[in-house]
């Protein structure tokens, strides 16, 4: 290495902070949460190989059987294996946590950048629209949209994505606006960079971190929202399994078959808790000032 190269690389080495991933994994709670989320993804993806039974095959000789050797978590009201339905149901939850976040990110990044960088009447219009959407609670927006769009998992995911949108747009716009007042943006402007180039090359990388944190928290909220919509019959349609619709059926057999209600809820709780812990840990790792607050 030449002297020049050494001089260039030295400050970087001295001033290097541990990577976000390392800072994240230093926290035992975050590691455990990451393990839970990973396990959930693996189970959802490998459902055909993991599930012991066909999740929609009914068996009227095994109706509402308590957990046993044959059926580890028991069977439901038409003799389907609860464990197999939980494993396959993870797919609906995984989709419901990823797709709405992807919808929210895809729409909010350009809108937030446009609103934050352009300002003026367009910014005003976009902000008033997000204010209006934020005035209606998240789940109500999702339920109302899903009701009007028609019941299906796809429509439920679109509804959840739209319901999550205003928070993302506000966050992207707020961060973009804060970044545009920085001196380096002023420098880029004075060097003749176009507005689009400034937005994409200089502002965009700076709004990624808060959006990443929000994505994790929204994924958690989306899992609950999908379960809620499926519980109401507005999400995954029978006989396809979903944790929410399993809980809906379980409600009628609380006395005879409590296991039908216990396990799907525990699954939702575990994955939502893990995503929330990850979101909190991400926030602390990416924004140390917020740590402990």
């Amino acid at each position, binding site marked *: 290495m030449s002297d020049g190269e050494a001089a260039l690389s030295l400050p970087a080495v001295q001033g290097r902070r541990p990577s976000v991933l390392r800072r994240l994994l230093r926290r035992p709670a975050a590691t455990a949460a990451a393990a839970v989320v990973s396990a959930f993804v693996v189970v959802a993806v490998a459902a055909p190989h993991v599930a012991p039974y066909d999740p929609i095959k009914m068996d009227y000789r095994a109706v509402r059987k308590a957990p046993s050797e044959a059926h580890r978590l028991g069977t439901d009201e038409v003799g389907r294996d609860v464990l197999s339905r939980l494993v396959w149901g993870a797919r609906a939850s995984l989709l419901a946590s990823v797709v709405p976040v992807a919808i929210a990110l895809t729409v909010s990044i350009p809108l937030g950048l446009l609103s934050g960088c352009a300002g003026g009447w367009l910014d005003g219009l976009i902000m*008033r*629209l997000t*204010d*209006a*959407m934020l*005035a*209606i*609670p998240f*789940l*109500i927006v999702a*339920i*109302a*949209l899903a*009701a*009007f*769009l*028609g019941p299906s998992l796809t429509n439920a995911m679109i509804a959840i994505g739209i319901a999550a949108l205003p928070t993302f747009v506000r966050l992207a716009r707020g961060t973009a606006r804060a970044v545009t007042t920085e001196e380096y943006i002023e420098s880029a402007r004075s060097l003749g960079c176009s507005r689009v180039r400034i937005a994409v090359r200089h502002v965009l990388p700076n709004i990624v971190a808060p959006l990443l944190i929000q994505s994790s928290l929204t994924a*958690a909220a989306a899992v*609950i929202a999908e*379960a*809620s919509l499926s*519980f*109401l*019959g*507005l999400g995954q349609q029978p006989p396809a399994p979903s944790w929410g619709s399993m*809980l809906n059926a*379980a*409600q009628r057999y*609380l*006395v005879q078959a*409590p296991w039908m*209600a*216990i396990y*799907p*809820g525990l699954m*939702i*709780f575990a994955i*939502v*808790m893990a995503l*929330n*812990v990850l979101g*909190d840990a991400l926030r602390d790792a990416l924004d140390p000032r917020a740590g*402990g*607050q």
Partner: protein
Amino acid sequence: MSLALYVARRVVVLLPTLFFVSVLIFSLQKLLPGDAAVALAGEENDPAAVAAIRARYHLDRPVVVQYGIWMARVLRGDLGESLRNRLPVAELLAAKLPVTVELAVCSMTVALVIGIPAGVLSAARRGGPVDVAANVVALSGLSVPHFWLGIMLILLFAVRLGWLPASGYVPPWEDLGRNLTTILLPSVVLGTGVAGVMMRHTRGAMLQVLDADYVRTARAKSVPERLVVLKHALRNALIPVITLGAIEFGRLLSGAVLTEQIFAIPGFGKMLVDGVLNRDYAVVQGVVLVSATLYVLLNLLADVLYFLANPRLRGA
């Protein structure tokens, strides 16, 4: 700045928000797949019925005119008619309001009783086992699906122990004792979620205040720690928590959808779900409109409370 001027300024900002809320809710109708008149006619596929609905709801007029007609009716308090029982939606909503308000008040009480002491204790014992435990409980409260928690509480307290009724609602003026037993479980379910939010905010606000100079001065003067925390710190830390309380109350008024459904509490939430299940779109629009308006007004109340509680704002 005077309170009147402050409120007037906030109202001016709220008006466009309410306008856009109404536009969004009106647009819901346009999401119905296919012809809205056919969808509104439901099971009846009679062309005459569809034509009657089209004329009645002005669906043959331009969208802007339709919005104008709808809005003019809403401003007169006419939210349309339930397709199911032909009763005015406004009347149905008025009947459900006391139930929803009672549930929200009881849930808020649970949230305050758990959330604020837990937040104070957690901040006072920062990093200790109490702090860790309170954080875990708060995060659990935020992560647990409320409708599942409701089912589990029914399983334990109604099915297994038989202490409380599983579902149903008795108005307080009929039998106060039974009213309280029917409202207890749903209030605990909703309250735990809000308690988690309250705890985290109280803790955050307390930690900030406990680091302030005047608290250090109080400690330097040998003021007992209990007084430092409860008198000096908590009074200031509660200012943001009061506003959060008003906002959360607004959320409770409309966010109790599944909890009301599970416990068969006849409030806004159950009305919304019934509206959705019966494809009674006027009811769905009415509930969403009223909930959103209440939420916006409670946000205004939160701002006013913040203004009143914060002397620095009044002097500005």
